């Protein structure tokens, strides 16, 4: 199954924010997490993640820090801020509203709603 690119784009922000809400991370690890979460179906072009992260930074949703881990190269870490958590909560509400609506007109797809989690 190939997910429409508009849907991929729309889900990118809540997904990244949610991953960062689990704990600070860096670009490559975030992408791996996205792949794992979606079972490989949400395939981003890797390079597109970074402009998105920079946008989140400009909006004040994440903070960044360059750090050099003991074993290797300098790496840019991203951590979610309070504003980011608020934005995430807002996004969650929107997605729940959308899935609830879809759920109502797609009889028999109750699994969709439970899969996304009751809010």
């Amino acid at each position, binding site marked *: 199954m190939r997910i429409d690119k508009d849907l991929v784009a729309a889900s990118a922000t809540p997904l990244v924010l949610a991953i960062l809400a689990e704990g600070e991370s*860096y670009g490559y690890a975030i*992408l791996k997490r996205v792949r794992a979460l979606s079972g490989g179906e949400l395939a981003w072009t*890797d390079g*597109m993640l970074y402009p998105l992260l920079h946008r989140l930074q*400009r909006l004040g949703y994440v903070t960044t820090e360059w750090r050099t881990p003991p074993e290797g190269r300098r790496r840019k870490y991203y951590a979610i801020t309070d504003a980011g958590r608020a934005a995430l909560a807002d996004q969650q509400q929107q997605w729940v509203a959308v899935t609830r609506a879809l759920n109502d007109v797609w009889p028999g797809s109750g699994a969709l709603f439970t899969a996304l989690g009751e809010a």
Partner: protein
Amino acid sequence: MNSVESQIAQWRAYVAKAPGVNGHDVDELEDHLRHQITELTAAGLTADEGFLIAVKRLGDVDGMSREFAREHSSRLWKQLMLSGEDELARRSVNWVEPFVFAVAAAVAIQIARLAAGFPDDEPTWFARNLSLFVLPFLAAYFAWQRQLDIRHWALTAAPFALAALVVNLYPWSGGSGTEVFGTDSDTEALAILALPVALWFVVAFPYMGATIQSHERRMDFVRFTGEWFIYYVLIALGGGVFMALIAGVFEPTGVDVDQIAAWVLPSGAAGAVVVAAWLVESKQRVVENMAPVLTMLFTPLFAVMLAAAAVAYAATGLGDAFDRDLVSVFDALLVVVLALVLYGMSARDPSTSSRGWMDGVQLVAVVSALVLDLMVLGTMIARIGDLGFTPNRAAALGLNLVLLVNLAGAAWLSARFLRGRSTLHRLERWQTGYLPVFALWAAAVVVIFPPLFGFS
């Protein structure tokens, strides 16, 4: 492994050239690339194969750079014009367009000058309409450049037409004020001062490609204004040298140097408005290196000066002894500070959101300006209470209130930013969101003040 290292180096060099991508971005992407390669080689691929797959997964550089550029529009703006050879070739043809508009402005001002008989005669209509002879050409240049459609051309032209009607049809009458710009009507003198400011904001409309809602475009316009000013001053300096040499060379031949100046100066000054705009757009990099240096240099100087002034006026109690001239000086000072802060903000690299000492210095400047502005306001309100409203006092009071609100908001937000409670983004939004207030105030002084005060 060595071949992979050299391939990575080549890839780095290639990505770094893409518009909108800066050195830190490349570092970050390289880290990503290496991570991916390590993982792929661990899975059994050779380093070469790993490199190819990792690069492929990152996606094509054009698409990525477009995304980066959209996010960091200020960077794109700097590189748009100079990204490659094709662009250079295109630009070498492009100088014709600005040249045509510059010549048109130069001719228009010359016709107006001849009709007015300037400089022997200085009719007030000439001063009133001065910006209307120049700025429409700048607006038209941008409208042409941005390929606006008919509707947006009309929207660009409408304010100019309205301004022309207002300044020429209002029945200006002599008042009791002192003579400024050859008129003794205060409202007329104020309109002469405010009209260029209001029209400059009209130019913003075609400049931003008719998308006035975009905060990023507004910031671009602020940046453009600052750099246009720098270029204009540079051109004016060159023009001054040119005129001095003309005088030196032709004086002995008995040619009337004043006559030459009367022809060359107005046309040069008008044409330079368009030429400076074109230079800002096309030779971005030249000023780019200079502008942050200038703001870095002058923001601390102004901060020290303002802080000293605020302390001195507050301590010596001169705070309530401002006279009319001093109020004008302080108004000018506050406007310069605001311009410096705005421009410093627009010239800032948005990707470095860390708080530096410059932010502290800027806060000192803004807070000191705020204190001074409060003193000016206090004096002015006292004066109005004693002597009543006049056009000049009302205009100065309005300007100070507009500045006060802006400075208070800026001080509040930058203090929060410094303590890590807010983002630079909020501060930028405040300033870009406030720009229409300046435009509306300038427009109000031109359009509403004269009838309000009986055109006196």
